[in-house]
């Protein structure tokens, strides 16, 4: 929706000498309708406290206010750095309500004031009992649906789906979380990145809920969190790209990451090839698929081999796909193309006549069809002597 909105704006500004076509006008109308119906959400994502999210967000708020947008601050963290405080001095702040001794975002007051944009520093807070919503991100949802745009910050460790992964690194239990879908469905996310030593210098410990500041984390822990946050952001961007393309009816274009397809058969143990696929997918931060073709008549021994391969694939946490099709090479290629595969791994079973029986000119057939896709042929011995 937001892109539509933007397109409309671009068209208004850039194409004044073009006559707008009806489709453009329709888009513009839809965009404007959308614009008034729901606020826009922008989230600043950081990997730890002290990375500079609050500063970046308030700096943006300052610039947007200078450009004439009606901005208020709805929630701020209990402790802020002097730089952030200096920015806050120049903003209208809606005082938080104290409930049960806990400062809580005053949603009613913000709704009454009804600014264009509300600044929410720290999405992951639990509201005290008796609040309209148990979670602050739900308050934000309320503001958005009332037509108020929100710019907000969140830290990696508060993303529900990444919590376990993060806790393994930090050994700190976090209870206040925001679902990843909330991040994915934001109109914009912006990564706030800085080297770990920056966080260590600037991270005021105790500033975050649960006291999960950066000062107690080592540079190595911070570095690992940083990588996870970047990969999370890449996934969100990838998701948004796909959503964008789907909405605009644009032919599928794949994101920037590697997608590895390991093709397994009932004729060779593929344990090593699958393990290699997993390692490669990890190194490239990509996805791993394991595919096989439904064979109509295979011997019990062959079935055992295939099932062994699939067990390996499950253990490697691969996406397993059963394919049906007359021509095996075509079937694999069709799947590969429709899933944006960038590398196909397969075993060259020269010792077995299976390839020649089924494929005629097997490997070549596949390689020939593999436009835009790399094919990695594994030696049969390698795979067989797992």
């Amino acid at each position, binding site marked *: 929706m*937001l*892109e539509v909105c*933007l397109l409309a*704006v*671009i068209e208004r500004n*850039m194409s004044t000498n073009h006559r707008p076509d009806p489709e453009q006008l329709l888009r513009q109308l839809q965009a404007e309708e959308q614009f008034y119906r729901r606020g826009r959400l922008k989230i600043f994502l950081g990997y730890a406290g002290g990375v500079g999210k609050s500063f970046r967000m308030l700096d943006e708020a300052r610039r947007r206010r200078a450009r004439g947008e009606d901005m208020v601050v709805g929630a701020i963290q209990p402790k802020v750095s002097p730089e952030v405080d200096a920015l806050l001095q120049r903003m209208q702040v809606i005082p938080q309500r104290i409930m049960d001794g806990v400062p809580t975002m005053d949603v009613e007051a913000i709704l009454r004031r009804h600014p264009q944009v509300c600044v929410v520093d720290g999405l992951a807070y639990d509201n005290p009992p008796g609040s309209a919503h148990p979670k602050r991100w739900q308050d934000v949802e309320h503001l958005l649906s009332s037509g108020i745009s929100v710019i907000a910050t969140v830290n990696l460790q508060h993303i529900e789906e990444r919590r376990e992964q993060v806790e393994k690194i930090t050994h700190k239990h976090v209870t206040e979380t925001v679902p990843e879908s909330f991040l994915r469905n934001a*109109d914009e*996310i*912006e*990564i*706030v*990145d*800085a*080297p770990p030593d920056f966080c260590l210098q600037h991270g005021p410990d105790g500033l975050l809920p649960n006291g999960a500041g950066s000062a107690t984390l080592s540079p*190595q822990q911070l*570095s690992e969190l*940083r*990588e996870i946050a*970047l*990969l999370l*952001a*890449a996934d969100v*961007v*990838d998701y*948004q*790209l796909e959503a*964008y*393309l789907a909405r*605009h009816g*644009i032919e599928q*274009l794949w*994101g*920037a*990451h590697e997608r590895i397809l390991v093709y397994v058969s009932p004729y060779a143990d593929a344990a*090593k090839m699958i*393990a*290699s696929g997993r*390692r*490669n997918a990890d*190194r490239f*931060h990509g996805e791993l698929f394991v595919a096989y073709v439904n064979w109509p008549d295979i011997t019990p021994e062959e079935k055992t081999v295939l099932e062994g391969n699939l067990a390996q694939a499950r253990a490697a946490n691969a996406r397993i796909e059963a394919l049906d099709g007359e021509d095996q090479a075509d079937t694999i290629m069709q799947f590969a193309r429709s899933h944006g595969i960038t*590398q196909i791994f397969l075993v*060259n079973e*020269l010792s077995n006549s299976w390839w020649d029986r089924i494929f005629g*000119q097997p*490997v*070549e057939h596949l*390689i020939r069809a*593999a*436009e*835009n896709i*790399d*094919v*990695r*042929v*594994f*030696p049969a*011995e*390698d795979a067989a*002597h797992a």
Partner: protein
Amino acid sequence: MPESTHRGTLKIFLGYAAGVGKTYQMLDEAHKLKDEGVDIVLGYFEPHGRRDTIIKAEGLEILPRRKIEYRGAVFGETDVEAILRRRPQVCVIDEFAHTNVPGSQRNKRWEDVQVLLDAGIDVLTTMNVQHLESLNDQVWQFTGIRVRETIPDWVVKQADEVVMVDLPPQALLNRLLRGVVYTPEKARQAMENFFKESTLVALRELAIRQTAHEVDVRHPLEEETETAELVEGDHESLPSPRQRSSDRILILVTEDPSSAALIRRGRRVADYLQAECLAVCVLRDGSVHRIPESQREAVEKHMKFARNLHIEPSVLRGEDVAQTLVDFARLHKVTQIFIARPQQKKWSMVFGRGLVERVVRLAHDIQVTIVAERRR
């Protein structure tokens, strides 16, 4: 000031397009360093007439550019000599991927930066992800634009720190509309070409993933080896201890234009797997001097390109390319051979007796990766 014996540190601010705020963020850091008492200068500063950037540079020492005349016009390039004389602790050099005007001492700005680093000066610089050599084909696939100014991956790998400068594409397009990035006509042109939203989203994802990779290779990881489980037997010549996997990749360089993309891909995979990367070129007489000139030029160009990416190609003598390649691979404990996928029109000629098939058959104990040229 005494000559430094330490090499300077390199920090790269990585973005995905003009206007995301790389220079601004770099200058912000420069101010912070200056406030901490660090002796810092702007060795090359390119504000592109952007007001915010110009204001941001106020209070920082800017060294004049070196004037170079070329075809009747005067260009300003980094004055490396002047920086060396001035000897700051830290030097800010904008636009790492820039190609110097002919007549400059060095071809590329990143080469200027090497000189500063060697002299013990720390450098802060900016670049966009699309300038990374190994991403050239992928970027072209996404954008239709063949980026000419590239930086070899090893140069970026040298950096002590890579920081992502992010801005959502919509915000970037808004900046463009407000005339913050370019003049109105140029902005309009840009939006019809490079600055299409889908292109920007894809480039951004590429930049984020690249930064994640740069972070990944810079924090200590557990030992992991690819071949340890893949190939039986002993390794007589293991890679240096710094290498974290015993993978070894061998690229077949030929006169075919597909060699460039093959080299880039092989290099990228090797870097991600932290593998060693070798290349060979097989010639009938074992010498580039006895082949037709057109072929020789192409082969030499590709070998030079490989060297530029820190891959030292060996020239082998052999009538039978596949056999010579595989023999070399076996001798050097190669775990993966990289060859190019023949182009469509050549298939009919080589079908059944093709190089690819022969290599796959001969290399029955080595993995073979057939790299497809990326098409749009």
